């Protein structure tokens, strides 16, 4: 892997400022973590979230998220497609990353976790994601408050690991992003950075995994699990159900549309029988429809 592209002071300043403005606009002032609220933010911003698990092949990381725009009849819809085969903390990070592309209008975008680090826009988006989820000024404040020092260069590794695990459970950033943040703001040494970066943070039976679980079992396990969700937000599913209730779509379309989002009418109190033959026919119809729209 190539070393990440280094952003200059001006670029970093611009990103920090943007993250600060956006956090404030969304109502996150001071040391309030965004964490689980990231999905509510999307909903409030009318960005439609689509979740689908896409496993990676071999060493190459699968894409993490995609930002998509659609404009028809003067109505612009914005979607974020999220790869849920990724660890949950990386999903949170990927959403924040895509928000950068949305805010800066760098266009529709598909992001990978590691490969595109050498691209400037990607490095900026990653920096924004980190800054948006945990602003540098707050991180510095936490460090100073807890260690009574702005440097952690003399702190032993175990203490650092516990500190990072606590940060992770509160701010929902991936372990490696947190380690990188500490290095970026120069509070840990190169040696500490390499030592921290080399551990296997995803193994729940190893030192860091055990620490994380001891600190907040529920959250820590959640962050380290691939959710493999398929679907969209309940608000968007509601549109489909209402369309059926108002006779805008028929039963078959209702069944097929819901199934695409891993749901069925029965989940919402409707029992509709459909024959296998009909199901096949509608499946074909669906495939045809997608081709027409391209």
């Amino acid at each position: 892997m190539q070393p990440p592209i280094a952003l200059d002071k001006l670029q970093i300043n611009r990103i920090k400022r943007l993250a600060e403005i956006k956090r404030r606009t969304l109502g996150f002032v001071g040391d309030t973590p965004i964490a689980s609220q990231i999905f509510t933010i999307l909903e409030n911003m009318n960005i439609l979230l689509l979740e689908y698990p896409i496993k990676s092949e071999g060493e190459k990381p699968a894409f993490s998220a995609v930002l998509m725009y659609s404009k028809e009849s003067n109505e612009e819809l914005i979607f974020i497609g999220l790869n849920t085969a990724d660890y949950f903390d990386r999903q949170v990070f990927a959403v924040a990353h895509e928000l950068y592309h949305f805010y800066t209008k760098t266009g529709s975008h598909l992001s990978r976790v590691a490969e595109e680090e050498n691209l400037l826009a990607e490095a900026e988006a990653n920096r924004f994601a980190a800054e948006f989820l945990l602003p540098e000024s707050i991180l510095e404040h936490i460090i100073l408050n807890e260690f009574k020092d702005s440097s952690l260069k003399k702190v032993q590794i175990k203490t650092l690991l516990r500190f990072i695990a606590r940060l992770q459970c509160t701010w929902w950033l991936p372990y490696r992003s947190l380690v990188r943040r500490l290095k970026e703001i120069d509070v840990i040494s190169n040696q500490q950075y390499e030592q921290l970066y080399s551990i296997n943070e995803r193994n729940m039976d190893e030192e860091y995994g055990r620490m994380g679980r001891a600190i907040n079992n529920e959250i820590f396990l959640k962050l380290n699990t691939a959710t493999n969700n398929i679907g969209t937000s309940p608000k968007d599913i509601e549109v489909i159900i209402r369309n059926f209730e108002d006779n805008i779509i028929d039963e078959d379309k209702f069944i097929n549309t819901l199934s695409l989002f891993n749901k069925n009418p029965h989940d919402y109190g409707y029992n509709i029988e459909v024959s296998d033959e009909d199901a096949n026919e509608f499946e074909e119809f669906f495939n045809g429809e997608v081709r027409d729209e391209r």
Partner: protein
Amino acid sequence: MRKLSTAKLAETVKLKREEKKLTQEQLSNLTGINRVMIGRIERENFIPSITQFESLANTLDFEITDMFIEKQETNSFIALRSEALSENEKEGVEKLFKMMLTLRQQILLRSKFKNATPNRA
């Protein structure tokens, strides 16, 4: 370049027909298009001939040209498809696109319905 949107045609035919309180059968009689074909147009799996198109537009009172959309509008999705993706990823991305297009269709149907019947929205 503009292209025919079967989704838009389907939505328009269904909404206009209902606005005029016509059954598929009645529309069939008025336009001379087989009732089954009208059903298929409304389900986006039949593209009418030019003559049928004209007849539909005249009877239901819509502009044929409005059924065409700028192909460019979906370019952003197409661009994504060309990125270097593994087979597995391509399949997943296709699925996400399908979800996106389907949800988009549901939202557009909903907003047209709301505009058509503001008192029920």
